[in-house]
């Protein structure tokens, strides 16, 4: 019986050999895959072993940590709750992070190459201070004003967004989206409660999780006339050049005539370019657009940032919050020729033209900055755990769509809008304010969207802020007046004058 016993012994040896080989495969070869697997909750635990970096503005922490007794040693806390939610986002335990928490995740968690030296020293001192800190460019007063004014707008609009940027640097001064959410329940260590809260927010028909300032596009209405004006000025038109107007205009080969918003708006057959913008003359710009041609209108829009798919707002040397592309639409017939009616409609910001709130703010900032469009950013500074500066934002020019002369003419025309025309509500004492209103029809039977893009110069002639305010479906007509009023208050706060 010994021969079979010996063979049984060999079988056991082979079986154990297989076990050993497989164990090597699992713990050796596949170890890294398993260690970093999405299913691996240990990665999460490790992340919460050291405090995550703080996101702060003006010395105030917006995303901070609270020590807990649980397995996850630190709870992320957002003391300002809804106020900064669209910017900062959140860092939940079980689902992907969002906002600056996402784009600066490596730095905040301490895993970034930029913090390599800190990690090495922590290894020797045994004192792991955690991740690096992120300082935002936002001006708290401007942010608070924007949030308060947009959410409590006097016209009862239920959704909206606003962006304010420093025209000369691109630093974002304020960014709000309304309705919004409180990120705190989403980062609860009770992952089931957090998932339930996320599900509730995600299924909310008002979509509070969206960052409407960056990711949503809307018909820009008359704010688009700034671009058509720029195209005309570049073609040799002057502020005083007369363009055809009238109370109605029907484009070649189209059905519905284009009208002005009021009977008293540019009823005459001719109007200067400056007057057309000041009073937001629809018939004038529709005809101007047709006169300039589809290519000119589309190329101009692109030169100002339309159709850009890859813009992010965050760190100028790294990732950020993605900005949806604004579009002009094709304005073409099925055979590829210009659809004149569509071109006319598009020239007043209707038809298929879509724009983000950020793009509106960039347009105003470009005019205020003499034609140079600065790349917008949110991350002003990165600090190591011991608060050594690792990165300072150095402003970058994103594009230069117009020269200084055109910019200067456009600025004059937009100032005229606020001083004499449709944008009077945006005026601020002691500042020179320019802008353009927009009232955009969207769905049939729905209230119009109210837009305002604008800028403010202080008494030294420096551009202090450029803003875009967008209110969705404002009840009761004249939707843009409220947007203009709010824009004025935001710019005043950004300039350090008010908001208290």
């Amino acid at each position: 019986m010994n021969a079979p016993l010996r063979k049984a012994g060999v079988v056991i040896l082979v079986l154990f050999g297989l076990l050993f080989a497989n164990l090597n495969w699992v713990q050796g070869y596949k170890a890294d895959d398993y260690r970093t697997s999405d299913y691996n909750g240990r990665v999460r635990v490790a992340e919460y072993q050291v405090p995550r970096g703080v996101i702060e503005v003006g010395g105030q922490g917006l995303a901070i940590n609270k020590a807990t007794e649980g397995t996850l040693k630190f709870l992320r806390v957002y003391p300002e709750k809804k106020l900064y939610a669209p910017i900062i986002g959140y860092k939940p335990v079980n689902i992907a992070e969002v906002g600056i928490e996402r784009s600066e995740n490596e730095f905040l968690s301490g895993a970034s190459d930029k913090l390599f030296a800190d990690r090495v020293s922590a290894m020797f001192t045994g004192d792991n201070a955690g991740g690096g800190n992120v300082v935002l460019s936002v001006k708290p007063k401007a942010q608070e004003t924007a949030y308060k004014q947009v959410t409590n707008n006097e016209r009862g609009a239920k959704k909206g967004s606003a962006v304010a940027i420093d025209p000369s640097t691109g630093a974002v001064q304020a960014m709000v989206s309304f309705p919004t959410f409180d990120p705190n329940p989403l980062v609860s260590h009770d992952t089931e409660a957090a998932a339930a809260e996320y599900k509730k927010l995600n299924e909310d028909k008002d979509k509070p999780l969206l960052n409407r300032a960056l990711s949503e596009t809307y018909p820009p209405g008359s704010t688009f006339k700034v671009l058509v004006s720029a195209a005309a000025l570049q073609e040799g038109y002057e502020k005083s050049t007369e363009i055809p107007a009238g109370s109605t205009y029907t484009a070649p080969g189209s059905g519905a005539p284009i009208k002005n918003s009021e009977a008293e708006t540019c009823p005459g057959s001719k109007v200067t370019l400056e007057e057309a913008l000041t009073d937001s003359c629809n018939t004038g710009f529709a005809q101007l657009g047709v006169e300039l041609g589809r290519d000119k209108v589309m190329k101009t829009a692109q030169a100002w940032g339309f159709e850009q798919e890859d813009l992010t707002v965050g760190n100028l040397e790294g990732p950020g919050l993605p900005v949806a592309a604004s579009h002009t639409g094709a304005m073409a017939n099925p055979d590829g020729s210009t659809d004149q009616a569509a071109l006319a409609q598009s020239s007043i910001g209707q038809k298929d033209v879509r724009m983000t709130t950020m793009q509106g703010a960039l347009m105003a900032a470009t005019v205020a900055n003499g034609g140079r469009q600065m790349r917008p950013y949110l991350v002003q500074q990165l600090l190591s755990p011991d608060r050594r500066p690792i990165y300072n934002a150095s402003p970058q020019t994103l594009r230069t769509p117009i020269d200084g002369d055109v910019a200067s003419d456009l600025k004059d025309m937009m100032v005229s809008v606020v001083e004499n025309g449709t944008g009077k509500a945006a005026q601020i004492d002691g500042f020179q304010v320019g802008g353009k209103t927009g009232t955009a029809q969207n769905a049939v039977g729905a209230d119009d969207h109210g837009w305002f893009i604008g800028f403010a110069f202080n008494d030294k002639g420096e551009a202090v802020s450029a803003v875009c305010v967008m209110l969705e479906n404002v009840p009761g007509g004249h939707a843009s007046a409220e947007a203009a009023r709010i824009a004025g208050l935001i710019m005043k706060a950004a300039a350090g004058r008010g908001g208290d």
Partner: protein
Amino acid sequence: MAIVALYGATVEANQFGEITPTFWVPAALLSVLFLGLHLVVRYVAPYADPVLIPAVALINGLGVGFLRRLDVAKSIADKDPVPGYFAGAGGRQLAWTLVAVVLAAILLLVVRDHKTVSRYAYTLGLVGIVLVMIPAVLPGSLSEVNGAKLWIKMGAFSIQPGEFAKLALVSFFAYYLVRKREVLSLASRRFLGIDFPRGRDLGPVVTVWLLSLLVLVFEKDLGTALLYFGLFVVTLYVATERASWLIIGLVMFFGGVYLAYLLGAAVGGPFANFYDRATVWLDPFASENYERVGGSYQLVQGLLGLGTGGLFGTGPGAGSPGFVPEVRNDFIFAGMGEEIGLFGLSALLICYLLIVERGLRTALAVRDSFGKLVAGGLAFTLGLQVFVILGGITGLIPLTGQTTPFLSAGGSSLMANWLLIAMLLRISDAARRPTTGGPAASPGVPKQPPAQLHGAMTEVIRP
């Protein structure tokens, strides 16, 4: 035991941030216990294999340490006081170890010659069947845990009678096969080039075996069914020295497995469980398998734990085995793997291999056929059990519920396996005892004929 004490100390260092002055208590208790067993062995089985007890003690001790580490982690998380040395799963395991080792000692004291066991072979066979059947006939409330009907639950206690049935069935198989081996190996019909024995010779063995298998199918315990199958085929093979048994066994096994897989896919019902396990094994990381109830969640978490441990492990007490469900029972190896790494697990694996190969060596050395079959069967079953559960949790083979011998929490498993070790010790004592009846035997003294096995009239001694 120094290793076990060191393990306990590291656990405390990692869990509390300090080593408490009493970290050595469980290790010391175990040391005293194993020393006691050693003394018993020295007294009643002086020639027993000296490797078995230390190897088993190491595994058992690490198991107690790891279970205690889980208790400590849980009490820290719940802010409860750290459990006493006999509280919690680790404490219970310590207590069960105590009971199991005492039982093993009693077995050694009572059974002075392993051949006496053969006298009760039919009784043992019947007892084995009854033990296996009890949970199947009991109502679910008294016998079901996690869908498998394997237990007898009495209040706070529950035992798994199937664990003990293993021992009884081995003895019965061994006895019967020894009696019939000549007939089995000689009187056979050749069919397709393979020798088949006559049905009436095999009858009782096949009946017992089929009954236990059927019962296990109803109890939904595939792992144990596989174990009994392997046990049966191997004892048969060793007794008859016919490779045909292996071929028949393997064909039946793989055929059965494939058939069950197909049936599970087609009709479900009692085979659905098997089909589920197979699909989960084939692709544990597929999200539909992972998210399904009863899917690959625990397999994946076990693998992730092993992967996280990597080569060196995170260190005892520094991992997060709490992510792995059933880490106290089936998945204890994955939980430990995270903390002691590939090297630690390899050492454990070698300990198991040592025990199994020592058992087989005992079977080779012992001179009576009954002893050979019992020792060989027990050692092989132990090895197979380690392979089935470890292969399952490392994704080598489909997962079947099994305890990891001497590691998993559970009194039945511990007691049964310690009794198994006691049997091996007893047989190894007989195997290594000098044939002349004492160490003083001098060469030239003629060897005494080996004692005849009781009732084995057809036995032919072939050393």
